[in-house]
Structure formats: structure tokens, C-alpha cells
């Protein structure tokens, strides 16, 4: 207290302690922190170092120092290519070289890597569309199992093998380089030898040539090695048609080809032709066919409806083809009876129109073993009634001054081809639906049979095989693999295959996105092929290899092309930019047939009856086998059988029950065990086996898939062969994506006959609409002012079920390939699938087709299967989406533009949405499907991914997004360029973009101008499962048939 007294004056104090200046308070002032907080005490530097060292050690010992994110090196664009904006795709015009007519394409490229192939607008063959193989070519580019370096082979062993699994290590790069250096030396040696002996004993085997620059190199080669011989081989060829034309016109093979046009054909008879899926210019033909069937009539516009006139398709076939499934009348007939059918048709036609006398004579003298009158087409009609109905239909059209077309499949015998051409001529179709021009794909006169015998006679010492895989796909009786193994064979090939392993040298062939070249379309239009990427592993084109061999002054593709077309400067730049060279199409003309010269060919036909036969068909996925190592194609469900990853012997229900087999049971066909698969609508006593499977030397994707049809295919039986078929022991598991044949009487695909439709357009109306309002009026409910409202309409009348949409979507949206094992479990990932339902005959009383007639008693119904419905099913983007309601974490939600969005990051994978989706369009990532890419070898395949689409991880649901990335990109572009307003139909979804028949329309339904909103106003517009009231944004236009009233 004394201290208190000693202080005077104004004094502020915080506490009595301070006032008293107690020692405790003094200590408190000195200390920064309250008691206990700064107890560390004095710290020596030594001590500090000790503690720090210990801490660092501990941190290290815990493994934390090595716990880092994986190191990834990125390269900055220190000097960016001019005009390149990272993240912004660029498009380049090019072309896919094909002997069946090359396809103009527009390739999307992200930072120098091609990510999507689409059709080049305005191109005569593609017209902005593609087929699924064009889409799949993208994956082939990045196939890590392409031939990566020049392989030298001795007795089936690769001499210069390398460890490819480690990816592009410096050692491996050097290995690749060395292999090419060695090739240069080898070619120089060969050239040395051939220059001296003028190419004696040297042969080149290749498919038909469509490249002018390659032709010029070949000419140069022929000059240098004047004795060199050129041979021709490819599986899917036009040899029979060419032969028929040669016989009828006397022209040379390369001077003539028949070009069909279906635009004006009011009736089309397809004789095993399958023109929608295979053969020259199938894209254009399917588009023309679909265009001639379009019926767009607004509700209530009866006048316009009455005026519509659509074409009619008759199909005669042994297989059940996609074309057959789309026909108005389909007659399943043994492949061996095709010629007899053509004769019977000619006979019937001769009653109406005048045929050449020699033909009439032949017909009269021809004794058909096949009794069409007894062959039941349906329960009420026979084969001869079918034939006479076609004949009178065709004749009536001719009388009315209209056109028809008879299309004969490329694989049909030249006798059938001859009759087809003559009938077309007699029906007055020349110059209208059939014209003639120079041949676009040039062939050499020598065949593989000739080559084979020359090798046997030791006349060939050196053989250069340009592409293809003859050791695998040449006629089995040639034993071609043994032949080429006996001589010095150089094989230019994209993959190391059966031919490569039998050769001495396998040279990597460049993908068409990797080299400079040129190619001709079916109509002769020339296209520049420009590379979008440097060869991934080092590769050359056909022309480049030939130029290298002959030690030409010019061996670079670009220079060869420039020289061939004499293009320089701006003209060259324009040519590259456009790819298509204008006015290069061949002139078309009419020709005169001399029918009597063909009689010998017709008389030579041997008629076969009453036995089993095996029919070979190009595979819808693998074609002749060239897409064997392509996962997209392997997993593509065949449009008819829905099989993936395998082929099988397709047999009719009746044949199956006669043989006592079920799906997957092995059959013994000419000594080979092949599993069976029942397809209703295949000719009885026939097994159809597609080509391209059962490869022995291929990449891991193709290994172990399917059965090799080529082993059963001889030089004289390339189309079909007599067969011994019996049940064999055992069973093989086949992976199909759709097991069910029928619609179970549900209104899923609506269809009608055009004549009935004209009388009662209400058939497509929504009978479930509770308020009696049309579904169209309902749509307006969601169209908020000033917003985009996305919608899709699929015209089932235009869709032929080809499945291009499925693969285009797969390419666009980084959809995983899951493999056979998982397809078997039903886990395929396709976002837009193609549903297929078979249907039987037309019920005149009901005015409808009978899709559910297949339920029981297959025996009889099998007979009646007349076609199949194809229905592409993408996400319906329901306004009242059942999936959204049930997701517990709100991972799938509706956006203001009507899209049913998936937030992958939010999805935890309860899969409830998948259960509740009535359309079953949702796809689940049951595994980490991208795990493959951990393998170093797959590094390159990652490049196929679209950078604008998330690659989904395991445990996440995914589905069609209406290509939301495209929508947003278009909106962003519009914001930059157009003040935010999207132009009508300025972009579309991937499926719609590639659809060859323009069956899919996508756009803004809130814009009355847009194509999609007009499609929604169509009479035939309907939605799937309307009674569920999910209000789908995706709707359909019903299918129309054009029945011949004579056939009911």
C-alpha cells in the first residue's frame, strides 16, 4: 500500500497489480505470452540444428519426401504454329482412299492431332456424311499395334524384334530409324538387280488403284523395269460386274463401270445387292434411296400428302441384309438360285417388254430346277407371284415413262450381272438410273490366280505386295501364304499380319491421315489427301514406296501429287484446302449392249439344288478383315444379328431346327467348326458366314475373334459354296447386344403403308395423351422465351440401321470399348444404340405390320419375316426425366435448355437412374475402362480422345449428352462472332452430322425456322412410351412402306 501512496497525480492503471507494481505484474509485462506459453527456454544453435535434423529425417522416413504427383513433362508452344489457338479445333479437308470410291472428309484436329473424321460437304461420294468405317479409321490411326518399324522376317520369325511395350524410348526410336536405313539399302540392292534384268521376275500385287500420282509412279516403274508384272487382288472387288460389262460392250476393264442413281428410280429390285451397306458408292446410294422416300407433310395438309410418291424396294437375297430389312417386299431365296430368279424375272418381263431375241431364246430354253411356284414367300404368296408382281410393276413404270433400277450385288456371278444390265437396258433405265463411265478404280489385267501359278512355275522371284492381306484372304486353294514364303516378298502393310509373317520384309504403310497423296471417287472426282499428322511411327504410302524402290528423283508424296496434277502456288493451296478438285468427274455416257455375245456366259451357269450351301458376305464391321484390330468395329453390333466380337454361321430358324442346333451350337461346315446363330429371314438350307474374322496374326484386339471364312473359300466359290453342314459337338459363346427379336406388341416403332397413311394420317397420333392435346402443343410449354431448347427427331423412314451414328458418337464422346466378356454381360457402352425388331407380313385387315408374330411357332413365322425395324435410341432428354428424380446426390439434373445433364464428378454410381430410365440409355462404368492406357504402348491411343469431353472414370454413369460440348462451343463462338445469337442449325450433334441418310435431326425446337422444330410438326412425329409422361425431347417419325397391292 505504501507504493500507492507514493504515486501521485493523474494515473491510469489497468489493474490493481499494475497500480501496485507487484512483481507478478512486472513479470507479466515482460513475458510475451501468458504463463506456460513460452517455456521452450533458451535454445542453443546446436540444439536447434539437432531438432531440425531430426524433424527432416522423420519427415523423410515417413516416405513423404517421395510422395509426389507423377511427373509429367509438358512442352510449351515456344513457337506456336501460325493461327493456332490452343483448345480450338481446326478442320482440314482430305479424303479416304478406297477402291469402292474414295470419300471426301473433313478432319477435326486438336493441337495437331486428328480427333474426328466427318464427311466433306459437297463431296460427290460423302456429301458431308460418313459411314462407320470412316469414323473407325480414326481409331486405326492411333492403333498401337500397327506396324511400327520395318520388320525383317525369316521363316515366320521377326529378325529385328524390339521391345515395343516400353513405348517411345530413345533406344526404340533408334531401332525404328535403323530399320528404315536398312530398308533403303535393301531397296537399292533390289533396284540394282531389277534395273539390270529389266524387272524380270518382279511382280507387284495390289488392290485396284485410285491414285493418279501412284499411277504415274507405276508408269515410271514400268519404264524402268519393263518386264515387271502387275497383279490385282482384293476381296471386295467388282470383277464379276466388270467381266459382264466387258462381255456386253467389248470394252476394256478400266474403261467402263456402271454407275447407278436411285434418285428417279420408282421401283428398285435389289438382287443380293445390299447397296446401302456395301459396294461402290453405298453412301450416295443410301442417301438417294432415303431422299426418294421422304414424306414430309404438315398436319392437315392432305393435298401434299396425296401428291407424295415414294419409291418401292424389292429385295431378293439369301442373307438377311440391311438393305433387305428396309425393303417393302423381301424374298428370301437361296444364293444358288439367284440366276434362276433372274431368268424367271426376265421371262416375266418379256411378257411386258421387248428383250433381245437371243435372250428370249435362252430364257425359253432354260430349264429351271428351282420351282418358284412352290416356294412360299408368305403364307399366301409364292415366289412366282412375287416375280410376276415385280415384272408388272417394272413394266408399268416403263409404260408410264418412269424409271426403275435393278441392282445386282458385286459378288454375284457375271451371268447374273449380265441379265441385270440387260434388264435395266430393256426397261429404259440407261442414262437415267444407270449410266456408264470410265472406271475409277484401275485394275491390272492379271489376277492372283495367275500370280500364284507363276510363283509355282518359279517365274517370280521378287514380289511387292502393296497393302492388303492376301495370305489370309486369297482363295484357300491357292495356298498363297506358302507361295509368297518361297520367294522374296516385300509387304507394305498397316499391320503385321498373316502376309507379313510369310514375307521377308514388312514395311509400315502410312495411314491416310499421315501422308500426301490423291485419290479418285467413284465418279472419278479427284481428291488431294493431306496429312494431318506426321507418321506416328514412320511409314510410307504405296506411291512413296514404289518411288523409293525405283530410286526416283522424287520420293516425297507431296511432290508426286504436285507433279501429277501440275499444281503450284495458290492453285495448289486451294486444291489442298478444298481437297476436291473441281470438274474432274468422268463423263458419263450410255453404251450399247450386244446381248448375243453374253449367251455363252449364261449357258455356262450350273444350277444347284436341294443341298446346303455356305454363303460368304463382307462383314458389316470388319469388311474383309481390314478392321480386325479396331475395337470400335469389333464391338459394333451387327445391324441384323447384333453380334459383336465374332462372326457366326447365320442360319434360319427352320434350318436350325432341322439341324437340331440352338444359338451358339457348333456346326460342322465343310470340315470346319463354326458356331451357329439363328436369324429369321435367312434362306433355308443356307449358312451365311461373314469374312474378316479368325485371324491368326493380328493385334491383341482382333486375336481370338470369330472364325475364318476364307479357309472355306476357293477360287471358284468366292460367293457361295456347296456345303456339308451338320451339328458338331460343343457350344461357343457369342456376344450379342440384343437377344430379343420382337416388340412384344408394343408400339415402339410405328409404321404404316403409304396408301393407308394417305387415308388415315392419325395412325401416328399419340393415343395415350390424357388431355387429348397433341404432344406438339405440349412442347411449347417448355419453350421459354429467348432460350435454346434442344431436341432431336429421328426419321425412321430414312434410317436404314447402318449404325454410323453409334460409331460417330463413340468417336466424339470418348466412349470406351469394353470387350467381348463384358458385352456378354450386357455392359456395352454405346450412347446411341440401334434397336432392331423383326417383323412379319402386312395385315391388311389390321392395316399394320405384325411385329409380334414372332413370339411362338417360329417355324411358320420364320417364313414370313419380311424385314426389320431399326430404331436409333439416344438419350431422350425427357422434360420430366425419371432418372433425375431418383439420383440421391443430384448428379443428373435438368438444365434450362432442356438437356438432361450428367455431372460425372458428382455421380457416386448408385445406378438408380439406370434402373429408372424407361429407355435404358444409361451406361455404367463398371470398371476403370481407361485402365488400358496405363500400358506405355497405349500412350498413343490416348490421342484419339476428344479433349472437350471428359473421360469417365470407374463407378460413374454416362449417357448421351446431345453433344453438349458442341452446343457450348457453338454458343461460345456465337458470342464471339455473332453477338451471342446462334444461327439456325449452325451445328449439329455427332450422330446427326454423320448420318448418311440424314435420318437424325438435331437443333433448337424453340426456333420455328429450325429443321428440328419442323420435323416435330410432321404428321408422323411420335414419342416413345408416351404413356409414361416423361415428355421426351427425342422423338421419331414413323416408318412408311410402299406395298405392291398385288402382293398384299
Amino acid at each position, binding site marked *: 500500500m505504501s507504493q500507492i501512496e507514493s504515486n501521485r497525480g493523474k494515473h491510469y492503471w489497468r489493474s490493481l497489480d499494475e497500480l501496485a507494481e507487484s512483481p507478478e505484474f512486472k513479470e507479466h509485462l515482460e513475458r510475451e505470452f501468458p504463463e506456460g506459453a513460452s517455456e521452450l527456454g533458451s535454445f542453443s544453435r546446436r540444439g536447434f540444428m539437432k531438432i531440425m535434423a531430426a524433424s527432416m529425417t522423420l519427415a523423410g522416413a515417413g516416405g513423404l519426401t517421395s510422395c509426389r504427383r507423377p511427373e509429367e513433362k509438358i512442352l510449351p508452344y515456344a513457337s506456336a504454329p501460325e493461327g493456332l489457338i490452343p483448345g480450338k479445333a481446326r478442320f482440314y479437308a482430305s479424303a479416304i482412299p478406297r477402291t469402292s470410291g474414295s470419300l471426301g472428309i473433313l478432319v477435326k484436329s486438336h493441337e495437331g492431332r486428328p480427333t474426328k473424321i466427318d464427311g466433306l460437304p459437297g463431296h460427290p461420294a460423302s456429301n458431308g456424311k460418313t459411314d462407320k468405317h470412316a469414323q473407325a479409321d480414326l481409331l486405326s490411326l492411333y492403333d498401337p499395334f500397327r506396324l511400327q518399324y520395318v520388320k525383317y522376317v525369316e521363316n515366320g520369325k521377326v529378325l529385328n524384334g524390339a521391345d515395343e511395350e516400353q513405348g517411345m524410348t530413345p533406344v526404340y526410336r533408334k531401332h525404328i530409324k535403323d530399320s528404315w536405313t536398312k530398308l533403303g539399302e535393301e531397296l537399292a540392292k533390289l533396284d540394282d538387280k531389277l534395273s539390270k534384268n529389266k524387272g524380270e521376275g518382279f511382280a507387284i500385287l495390289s488392290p485396284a488403284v485410285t491414285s493418279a500420282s501412284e499411277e504415274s509412279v507405276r508408269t515410271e516403274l514400268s519404264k524402268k523395269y519393263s518386264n515387271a508384272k502387275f497383279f490385282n487382288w482384293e476381296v471386295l472387288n467388282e470383277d464379276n460386274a466388270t467381266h459382264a460389262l466387258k462381255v456386253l460392250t467389248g470394252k476394256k476393264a478400266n474403261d467402263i463401270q456402271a454407275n447407278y442413281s436411285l434418285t428417279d428410280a420408282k421401283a428398285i429390285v435389289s438382287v443380293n445387292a445390299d447397296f446401302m451397306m456395301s459396294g461402290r458408292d453405298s453412301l450416295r446410294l443410301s442417301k438417294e434411296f432415303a431422299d426418294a422416300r421422304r414424306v414430309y407433310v404438315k398436319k392437315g395438309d392432305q393435298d401434299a400428302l396425296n401428291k407424295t410418291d415414294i419409291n418401292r424396294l424389292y429385295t431378293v437375297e439369301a442373307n438377311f441384309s440391311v438393305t433387305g430389312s428396309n425393303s417393302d417386299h423381301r424374298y428370301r431365296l437361296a444364293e444358288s438360285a439367284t440366276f434362276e430368279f433372274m431368268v424367271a424375272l426376265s421371262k416375266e418381263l418379256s411378257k411386258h417388254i421387248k428383250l433381245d431375241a437371243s435372250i428370249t431364246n435362252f430364257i425359253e430354253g432354260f430349264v429351271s430346277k428351282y420351282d418358284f411356284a412352290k416356294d412360299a414367300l408368305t403364307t399366301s404368296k409364292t415366289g412366282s407371284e412375287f416375280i410376276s408382281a415385280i415384272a408388272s410393276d417394272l413394266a408399268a413404270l416403263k409404260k408410264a415413262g418412269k424409271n426403275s433400277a435393278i441392282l445386282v450385288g458385286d459378288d454375284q456371278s457375271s451371268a447374273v450381272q449380265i441379265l441385270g444390265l440387260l434388264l435395266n437396258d430393256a426397261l429404259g433405265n440407261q442414262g437415267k438410273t444407270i449410266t456408264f463411265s470410265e472406271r475409277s478404280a484401275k485394275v491390272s489385267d492379271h489376277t492372283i490366280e495367275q500370280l500364284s501359278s507363276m510363283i509355282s512355275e518359279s517365274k517370280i522371284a521378287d514380289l511387292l505386295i502393296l497393302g492388303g492381306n492376301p495370305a489370309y484372304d486369297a482363295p484357300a486353294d491357292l495356298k498363297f501364304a506358302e507361295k509368297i514364303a518361297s520367294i522374296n516378298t516385300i509387304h507394305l502393310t498397316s499391320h503385321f499380319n498373316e502376309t507379313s509373317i510369310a514375307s521377308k520384309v514388312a514395311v509400315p504403310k502410312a495411314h491416310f491421315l499421315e501422308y500426301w497423296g490423291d485419290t479418285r471417287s467413284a465418279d472419278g472426282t479427284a481428291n488431294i489427301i493431306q496429312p494431318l499428322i506426321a507418321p506416328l511411327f514412320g511409314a510410307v504410302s504405296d506411291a512413296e514406296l514404289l518411288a523409293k524402290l525405283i530410286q526416283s528423283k522424287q520420293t516425297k508424296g507431296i511432290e508426286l501429287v504436285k507433279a501429277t496434277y501440275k499444281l503450284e502456288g495458290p492453285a495448289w493451296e486451294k486444291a489442298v484446302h478444298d481437297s476436291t478438285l473441281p470438274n474432274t468427274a468422268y463423263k458419263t455416257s450410255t453404251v450399247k449392249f450386244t446381248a448375243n455375245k453374253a449367251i455363252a456366259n449364261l449357258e455356262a451357269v450350273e444350277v444347284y439344288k436341294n443341298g446346303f450351301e455356305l454363303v460368304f458376305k463382307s462383314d458389316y464391321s470388319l469388311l474383309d478383315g481390314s478392321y480386325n484390330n479396331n475395337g470400335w468395329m469389333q464391338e459394333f453390333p451387327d445391324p441384323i444379328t447384333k453380334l459383336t466380337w465374332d462372326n457366326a454361321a447365320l442360319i434360319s430358324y427352320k434350318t436350325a431346327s432341322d439341324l437340331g442346333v440352338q444359338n451358339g451350337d457348333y456346326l460342322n461346315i465343310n470340315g470346319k467348326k463354326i458356331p451357329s446363330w439363328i436369324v429369321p429371314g435367312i434362306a433355308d438350307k443356307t449358312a451365311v458366314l461373314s469374312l474378316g474374322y479368325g485371324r491368326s496374326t493380328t493385334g491383341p484386339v482382333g486375336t481370338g475373334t470369330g472364325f475364318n471364312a476364307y479357309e472355306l473359300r476357293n477360287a471358284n466359290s468366292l460367293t457361295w459354296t456347296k456345303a456339308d453342314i451338320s451339328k458338331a459337338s460343343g457350344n461357343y459363346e457369342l456376344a450379342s447386344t440384343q437377344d430379343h427379336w420382337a416388340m412384344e406388341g408394343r408400339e415402339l416403332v410405328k409404321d404404316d403403308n403409304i396408301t393407308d397413311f394417305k387415308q388415315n394420317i392419325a395412325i401416328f397420333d399419340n393415343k395415350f395423351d390424357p388431355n387429348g392435346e397433341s404432344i406438339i402443343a405440349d412442347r411449347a410449354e417448355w419453350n421459354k422465351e429467348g432460350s435454346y431448347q434442344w431436341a432431336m427427331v429421328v426419321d425412321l423412314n430414312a434410317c436404314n440401321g447402318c449404325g454410323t451414328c453409334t460409331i460417330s458418337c463413340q468417336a466424339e464422346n470418348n466412349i470406351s470399348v469394353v470387350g467381348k466378356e463384358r458385352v456378354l454381360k450386357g455392359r456395352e457402352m454405346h450412347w446411341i444404340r440401334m434397336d432392331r425388331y423383326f417383323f412379319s407380313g402386312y395385315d391388311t385387315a389390321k392395316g399394320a405390320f405384325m411385329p409380334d408374330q414372332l413370339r411362338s411357332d417360329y417355324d411358320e413365322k420364320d417364313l414370313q419375316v419380311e424385314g426389320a425395324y431399326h430404331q436409333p435410341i439416344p438419350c431422350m432428354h425427357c422434360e420430366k426425366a425419371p432418372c433425375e428424380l431418383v439420383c440421391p446426390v443430384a448428379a443428373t439434373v435438368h438444365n434450362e435448355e432442356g438437356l438432361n445433364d450428367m455431372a460425372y464428378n458428382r455421380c457416386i454410381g448408385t445406378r438408380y437412374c439406370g434402373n429408372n430410365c424407361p429407355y435404358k440409355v444409361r451406361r455404367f462404368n463398371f470398371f476403370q475402362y481407361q485402365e488400358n492406357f496405363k500400358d506405355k504402348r497405349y500412350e498413343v491411343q490416348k490421342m484419339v480422345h476428344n479433349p472437350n469431353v471428359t473421360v469417365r472414370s470407374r463407378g460413374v454413369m454416362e449417357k448421351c449428352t446431345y453433344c453438349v460440348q458442341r452446343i457450348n462451343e457453338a454458343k461460345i463462338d456465337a458470342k464471339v462472332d455473332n453477338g451471342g445469337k446462334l444461327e439456325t442449325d449452325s451445328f449439329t450433334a455427332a450422330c446427326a452430322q454423320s448420318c448418311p441418310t440424314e435420318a437424325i435431326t438435331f437443333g433448337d425446337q424453340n426456333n420455328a425456322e429450325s429443321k428440328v422444330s419442323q420435323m416435330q410438326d410432321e404428321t408422323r412425329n411420335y414419342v416413345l412410351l408416351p404413356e*409414361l409422361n416423361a415428355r421426351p425431347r427425342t422423338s421419331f417419325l414413323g416408318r412408311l412402306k410402299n406395298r405392291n397391292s398385288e402382293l398384299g
Partner: protein
Amino acid sequence: MIDMTLDPNADNPAQRTPLVQGGMGFKDVSHAVCDISERKTPKIWFLCLAAALSTLGLLKTSILYLIWEGTGIWGLNNPTYWGWAIVNFVFWVGIGHAGTLISAILFLLRQDWRTGVNRFAEAMTLMAVACAGVFPGIHIGRVWAAYWLFPIPNQMTLWPNFHSPLLWDVFAVSTYATVSLLFWYVGLIPDLATMRDRAKTKYRKIAYGVLSLGWTGANKHWQRYEKAYAILAALATPLVLSVHTIVSFDFTVSNLPGWHTTIFPPYFVAGAVFSGFAMVITLMTVVRHIYKLENLITIRHLENMCKIILLTGTLVGYAYAMEFFIAWYSGVEFESYAFINRAFGQYGWAYFIMIGCNVISPQFFWFKWCRTNVVFMFIISIFVNIGMWFERFVITMTLNNDFLPSSWDYYSPTIWDVSTFVGSFGLFFTLLLLFLRFLPIVAISEVKNCIPEADPHHGDHH
């Protein structure tokens, strides 16, 4: 005057058999129950535990492999996105129904016979719910994100979707588990105190001492205990109905034919009670025999449960018939097809197993002999257990054939589906064995209430 003969077969309601037989007194009851855990652990118990633990190991292995590889190891496919995991979940949740029903509803209805079986049934409920709880968590594609199902505040302001029945499920099952656990534990307190009081070893004294929460048996304690118990019973009662109702919403709220039916909630609850009682009988008949508890868990107890099985089994049978009737009566082609396909389609065999086990087998309980023969009721209860698993399987498999025939497929389970299901029994039996060994398996204090001596007027002269 009432004749008090101790006839266990007396069926006259006015002459009900006593619930505790053999003339047991208070001390006898305590001894009979507590002695089970106090006597030396029998070797057979260790053997059983070893078996149960290895089955639990199977569950663990299956789950680890599942998390490592993905749900693809199961037989799921595109139309059938839910398989055995959901079947098992509903199966176990259903079994979990008996306990709460016995303890809560029968308590409120003053059904004294519940006392003999309620502790066991409640414990079984918790074990079954634990087994059920395994499945929703692991069946999702991204297990590591399962906690997103809970409304946890986060910086992205993401919230679960309260429209989704799966979310209701999360709340329903977790609430049910919590309340059941509390209810069970509150009921245990007096008995734990008894165990504590009888404990001879130090560890037992500490363990039961802690667990009994300082129970002294004071009047105040009993008063509060009774109040708490009654409140919990009242809380648990609606949960008995709600939890399986909400589980059934997982199916009914969807629009699938065969799932989208209004009959599901009552039918699921009846089915759950049905399966729960069957499981209680399955286990109880064995346990009472092994532990010689025939005087506490009498034939009357078992018979009563058989009667409930008969009732609920018949209800379930009615529901099956009604589903078919409505499918036909509605005229909806998808629904009609779904039901015809359910009975005569690819899984027809499963449907008839279900009918045989669930509808036909309980009908034997119309006969008194069947209701009172322990071996017979054990066999029937096994049938019911099987049948009820198949019921859920049949319902779930309706997924195979919905609207578009193009998507129809066939589901077949893989070895991992089977091992996960079998493994869940490992969890169940591990918990059961621990319960049998360490806790009073009969509610001692409650049973004592049922002894005539417990009546305040017992021995009074009239």
C-alpha cells in the same frame, strides 16, 4: 376362481400358461441368464466364433476386392443395375424388423409374452441392420464418395437430392438403427447392473460397471427407466412401419413395371415382420435348447411367434395375388407382361420358390401341432428365410424385362455376389456369438415382472 394348473398347452385365453415355467423365482431367473456368460467359455463357442470370423473374413475380402476392381465384379448389367447387393440389403433390413416390433409395439400393447424374447430379438435387429448397412455403402460405384449421400455442408453448396428414395433410405435406416440401438441399450441397463453385481472378476466388474451407467436399482432409477423405455417404445413404433415402407419406396417410386405399385409399402412391412419372426424362431429354437432356457422361452412364446408368421405370411400371399390382379386389371401391357414374366419367365423358378416358401409353408401353422413342435417350426422358419430372400430377388430381377424389349437381358450372379452374401452371415453370426457370450440374452428384469411373485398383490388374500 381361476385354475392355476401349469399346463403349457392350455389354449383357453382365460387360462393362459404362465410365461415363466418350472417354478422359477427371481434368483433362478437371474442365475439362468447370467450364468450363461459367467460360466467357463465352452470350446464349441470358440469353434463357432472361428467359423463366423472366417466367414466375416470372406466378407472383408469380397469388399476389398470390390473396392479395388469396381462393381463390375458382380453380375450386374445394363438393364439390371441392381443385383444381389440390393437383394441382401432388403433381406437384412427385413429381418431387422422383428426386434423392434416385439419390443416396441408389443410393449405398447402390453403383450407380456414379449419379455422372454425381446432382448434377443432386439439384438438380432441390430445385427441384421449392421449387415444391411454394409450393402448400400459398397454397392455404389464410387465407394469413396459414399458420404455425399449425407447432407454435409460443403463449400460447393452441393446438397443431396431430397426427391430420391435412396436418400430417404439413408435417413430411414440410420434413424432406425440409432433408435433400435438406444432402445436396446436402455432395456439392457438394469440387467447389466445385475451382471455387474454378480461379477467375480475385475474386468467383468469394470466392464459391466461402466456399461450399467451407475444403475443402483433405486426407485428413482426405475421410475425414469420406465418413462424412457415407454418414450423410446413410442418413438420406435412408427419406425417399425416407416423403415420398410421407405425401403419399398426404392422400388415403388421408380416407374418400372413390377416395381411401380402402391401395394409395396404394406406388403414390404408385412414381409419384413414375417422374415424377422422367422429369423427369431430359427435362432431362438437353437439357443433356448443349448442354454436350457426352455422355462423362460416357452412353447407359448414360440407359438405366438408362429401365429404372427402365419398372419404375415398370409398377408404377403395376399399381396402377391393382388399384384397379379392389379397388373391384369390395370390393362397396362408392360405391367401385365412384367408379372407374367415374373412367374413364367426366365426367373419363374425363383418365383415358385418364393411362393412355396412364403405362402404355402406358413400355412402349416394353422395346426397346433406345427406351431408347438420346435423342430418343425425351425424347418418352416428356414423355408421362410429362404423364401423372403427370393422375394427380394424376384422383385429386383423385374429389372430384366422392362419397357423396350431391345434392352432385355439376363442377370446371373458371380462368385463375388455369392461370397458377399455369405460373408454377411459371418458378420451376423460373429455379432450374435459375442452377444450370446457377453450380454444377458433374456431381459432379466422384465421377465421377473412376469413372475407371479412380482405382482404387488401376489399372495394377497382376497
